[in-house]
């Protein structure tokens, strides 16, 4: 029962936070020194056009009404119109969001597959050469500017070795010869669903470098935190008791200790996920990846504020849901959490 209470409390908190996030996003958008009307109508518009635009954009209303109107539209899937392109933002989002998410998901898979086991092994063989090596590896990953790594990877694998493509999600040949059906927007999934094997391989080859670059920070972080959490757990008396009961290494490390260490590890994974959403922006620029990052950065440079607000809002919402999910997961795993 305590658990159910906790879950309800947590959900309410998430709602509150979402409201707060939307307000802040809105406020930031309105901090813009430049006049959105001027951007919308151009520098040479007449006064009547300007006034009409002002009313149309809702800028004559008090701030809170603007906010409410905006939120209402958002709930209907209307994120406004790009000031520059006049296209509904929602259409752009439908294309760019899956692109970024696909990159982030692949990156997360790499993080989990490499970071966590290395962290466990590092802790289990503490101070051995395996441990030292993985710690050095982790520190380098955590200290590396991700856009620099991306550049280096391009330098090595594309320029020097010619192994992998330089950017984009698919090569032009595939786009023409074996075009991908847009089912989910996740190309890996779409190509599998339509059994488009050549396109699948192509998409995969385009994902390799960006996802490696993007995952680096998270891999480093996961190794460090999993290691720390595991070391802490391995010192606990209940682990000694497990050894004393004759349980094998596999059981003790991977069935018991990992579960006890999983809570901080999950937190790290959550942090990594979110960090990777931000990091994706930087990586996308380098690899010309048509995702939210490129979209956002271009919008910033062209002072296209409706886009900035929308993207910030979407990403923040993702973030809130991820944290919520992790907290609920933690409550499932650790029966003591609901008591707090």
């Amino acid at each position, binding site marked *: 029962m305590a658990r159910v209470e906790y879950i309800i409390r947590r959900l309410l908190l998430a709602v509150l936070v979402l409201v707060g996030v939307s307000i802040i996003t809105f406020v930031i958008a309105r901090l813009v020194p430049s006049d959105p009307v001027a951007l919308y109508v151009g520098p040479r518009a007449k006064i009547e056009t300007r006034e009409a635009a002002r009313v149309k954009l809702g800028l004559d209303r008090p701030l809170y009404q603007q906010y409410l109107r905006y939120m209402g539209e958002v709930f209907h899937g209307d994120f406004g119109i790009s000031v520059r392109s006049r296209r509904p933002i929602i259409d752009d989002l439908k294309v760019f969001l899956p692109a970024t998410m696909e990159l982030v998901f692949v990156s997360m898979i790499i993080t989990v597959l490499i970071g966590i086991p290395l962290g466990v092994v590092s802790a289990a063989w503490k101070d051995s050469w395996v441990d030292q090596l993985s710690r050095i590896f982790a520190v380098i990953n955590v200290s590396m500017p991700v856009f620099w790594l991306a550049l280096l990877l391009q330098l090595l694998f594309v320029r020097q070795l010619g192994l992998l493509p330089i950017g984009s999600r698919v090569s032009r040949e595939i786009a023409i010869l074996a075009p991908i059906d847009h089912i989910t927007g996740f190309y890996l999934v779409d190509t599998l669903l339509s059994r488009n094997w050549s396109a699948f391989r192509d998409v995969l080859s385009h994902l390799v470098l960006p996802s490696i670059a993007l995952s680096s920070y998270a891999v480093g972080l996961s190794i460090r935190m999993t290691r720390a959490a595991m070391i802490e757990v391995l010192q606990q*008396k209940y682990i000694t008791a497990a050894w004393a009961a*004759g349980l094998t290494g596999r059981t003790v490390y991977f069935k018991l200790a990992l579960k006890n260490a999983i809570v901080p590890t999950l937190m790290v994974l959550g942090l990594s996920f979110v960090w990777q959403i931000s990091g994706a922006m930087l990586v996308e620029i380098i690899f010309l990846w048509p995702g939210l990052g490129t979209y956002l950065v271009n919008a910033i440079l062209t002072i296209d504020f409706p886009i900035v607000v929308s993207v910030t809002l979407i990403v923040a919402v993702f973030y809130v849901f991820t944290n919520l999910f992790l907290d609920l997961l933690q409550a499932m795993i650790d029966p003591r959490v609901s008591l707090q």
Partner: protein
Amino acid sequence: MDQPLVTVRDLRLQFRTYAGIVHALNGIDLEIHEHDMLGLVGETGCGKSMTGVSILGLVPRGGEIVSGSIVFRGEELLGKPESYMQTIRGAKIAMVFQDPSASLNPLFTIGQQLETVMRRHQRADKSQMRDRALELLKVVELPDPARILKTYPHELSGGMKQRASIAIALSCGADLLIADEPTTDLDVTVQAQILDLLRRLRETQGVAILMITHDLAVVAETCQRVGVLYAGQVVESGPVDEVLFEAKHPYTRALLEASPKRSSRGQPLQAIPGTVPSGLHPLEGCAFSPRCPHAMEICGQAPPRISVAPSHTVYCFLYADSEER
């Protein structure tokens, strides 16, 4: 007398620390027979816990057994690979710890923890294991065993947690149960119950118990034989009545003097002057000699093992001419 279950001979354990080498055990001699209830008593830091974990081969990081032998049912345990030790632990020799809140995994139910151990050492299907689990919980006198299987450790009281730990330890029919300060963290009334339980288990389950404690009263109540530890060595061992009422070694005597007794009401407690020697600088000869009221020059050498009565031994020069070796 039949062969002892466990024989420890001249066990020496050292730890490498920043400050130097700490000598935790300096030649422990012990014998545990089947169905024995042997107490290992001494002050904090004398090495009694280390003796317990050494038998199981669970010496903490940085520690190394530099010499000696531990024989279990005729097999020398020292030097055996970890895989072998993992078949001994839990199945033949089990351990119960001081703080049951710390030694039970908070994220698993009692039932799950029981099952994990049983599955490791025994072949049985789910329903057989569940039956056995329920039986074990009844044996340790936990009420409503079916419900307990589904509870988490933090939902139980201290005494119940310790009972559950004992159940887990005995789940695979161990021959020896090492109990490291099993009642120290419990309330006094609960202490008595757990000690009673351990005594009964020895009879009904046929398990030998090594009771590690700093509390002489616990030893007096529950054990048949006792070993007194000082600075990593056994200074005296024998039947409980003899050692406690006819204590031979000066340290045992001092320890008994220092315990508050009804007869000494109103009088100041007798402390033992001086301090326990540091493990970094072990002394040549008898470790107790700096504090011993009867110290002689010859105490600078390693004291011999003297039998002052059948199965009652002392390591002290005071009795050097009294009995045979």
